[in-house]
């Protein structure tokens, strides 16, 4: 792909309910902040991509109502959605459009207002002839995968709880996070309400209202507009077969994320991710998934994820900080969640991540994940 870079990012304050603003206003909040961060005016934007899960808010073609919130009036605009990977896929679409030569500046905005609908019910609109009768949303599906992972790997509830503690504590440094607690403990997690065995409330991502945006610039523009752009070094997407029961041992093998990350590593020249990546913003919908992704993404050998979190390797001061922002466990406006991963990774490269800045971050990984085991991997770097 021709060179492109992220030159600005913006996020709303994510919360359980943002009924102070309408959907277009929520989108405007993130879009304005991203343009300010990039030092651009709305008129500088050549094209807009929106990311949102239509049925979570019961909308058809949501860009029609919400587009003007993203400064899309009179501009090329399209909406992309691929389930949980909507946000990362929209960012990758933004990379492609900015690299096409058609546009210099592409604004990507993801948003979700879960408080306006019933997400788990919307998610259950699956094949009416097969699994709709037994659908139980993302929660039930994750919990099923975890039983396989625990049986095979022997990972403990306490190790998973450490992921939640890391997330809440990191989130305390992030002003945009929905959930944060600088003093979170393993006991807090284990004592929180059991949602679906073995997932406790604090193991599971929340449903948040929020929006996030990135400004993507073509290579020439990025050099002109930014002293330190976050260059896109690689981006890969893999989709899976359509039914939950098609997927073999999701958390253990997750062939989509494995293949997408290996493809991205190869393009970016990464052979030892733990050493060569300065941080990772990964899509961890539940604590156990973060542990599984350590193995899938090659941060450790199979079966070593529990030890990795115990040793603090992925802590904010560790060798490879994972989700210094607090991650999906601390804020999850689904259509925005993948955009947040990419925006956080970019902000780290841009050196504008605030209190959760990883000093000297030069190479960052962002991933996306969907319930049907779809995956995206994006690698950003301080050099082309």
């Amino acid at each position, binding site marked *: 792909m021709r060179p492109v870079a992220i030159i600005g990012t913006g996020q709303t304050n994510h919360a359980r309910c943002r*009924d*102070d603003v309408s959907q277009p206003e929520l989108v405007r909040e993130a879009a304005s902040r991203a343009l300010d961060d990039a030092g651009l005016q709305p008129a500088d934007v050549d094209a807009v991509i929106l990311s949102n899960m239509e049925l979570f808010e*019961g909308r058809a073609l949501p860009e029609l109502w919400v587009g003007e919130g993203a400064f899309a009036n009179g501009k090329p605009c399209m909406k992309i959605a691929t389930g949980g990977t909507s946000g990362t896929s929209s960012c990758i679409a933004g990379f492609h459009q900015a690299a096409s030569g058609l546009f210099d500046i592409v604004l990507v905005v993801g948003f979700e207002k879960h408080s*306006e609908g*019933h997400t*788990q*019910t*919307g998610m*259950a*609109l699956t*094949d*009416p*002839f*097969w*699994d*709709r*009768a*037994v659908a*139980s*949303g993302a*929660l*039930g*599906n994750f*919990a*099923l*995968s*975890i*039983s*396989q992972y625990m*049986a095979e790997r022997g990972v403990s509830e306490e190790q998973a709880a450490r992921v939640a503690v890391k997330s809440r504590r990191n989130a305390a440094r992030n002003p945009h996070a929905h959930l944060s607690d600088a003093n979170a403990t393993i006991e807090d997690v284990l004592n929180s*309400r*059991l*949602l*679906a*065995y*073995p*997932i406790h409330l604090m193991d599971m991502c929340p449903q948040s209202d929020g929006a996030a945006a990135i400004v993507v610039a073509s290579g020439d523009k990025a050099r002109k507009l930014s002293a330190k752009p976050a260059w896109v070094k690689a981006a890969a997407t893999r989709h899976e*077969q*359509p*039914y*939950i*029961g*098609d997927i073999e041992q999701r958390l253990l093998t997750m062939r989509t994320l494995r293949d997408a990350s290996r493809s991205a590593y190869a393009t970016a020249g990464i052979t030892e991710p733990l050493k060569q990546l300065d941080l990772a913003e990964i899509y961890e919908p539940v604590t156990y998934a973060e542990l599984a992704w350590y193995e899938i993404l090659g941060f450790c050998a199979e079966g070593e994820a529990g030890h990795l979190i115990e040793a603090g390797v992925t802590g904010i001061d560790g060798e490879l900080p994972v989700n210094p922002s607090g991650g999906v466990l601390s804020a999850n406006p689904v259509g925005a969640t993948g955009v947040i991963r990419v925006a956080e990774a970019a902000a780290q490269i841009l050196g504008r991540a605030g209190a959760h800045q990883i000093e000297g971050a030069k190479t960052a990984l962002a991933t996306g994940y969907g319930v049907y085991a779809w995956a995206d991997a994006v690698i950003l770097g301080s050099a082309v």
Partner: protein
Amino acid sequence: MSERVSVPIEMVQSWRYSSGDSMERFSNGIRHKRIEAVKCGNCQRRYLPPRPVCGNCHLSLTEWVPVSDVGTLEAWTVVYLPFLDGRTGELRDGPYGMGLIRLDGSDTTLNHFLNQNDPAKLAVGMRMRIVWRDELHGAMDDILHFEEVS
């Protein structure tokens, strides 16, 4: 902070879904407690639910193979959080057991309810059997739930 107004709109919508030929055959079988999977001639994978092509090999699936009503529990959970069933608008209360069951003769697993909701009594590898409803109408909820083979 000034007053925040929101606008309630209820979606009451129905769609007429086409099953497709293979799902129609499968559904007709279910009506007689007969389960059949489609098999890929290349990778030999036996698929439930039936579908037009093997996504891995891009080949049409035309061969049918019989599948048992007994299988292995590959994954399980007990859901405690009540779930709003969009089909009825009603809450499904917890706790209820759920599992991925690999029926003997199929390579994919079936996501369904378990009659057991005690985590201490569930384990990967357990043998499970379909419990059918009394009245069968050719749909997935003809299966009431799965129970352990004693």
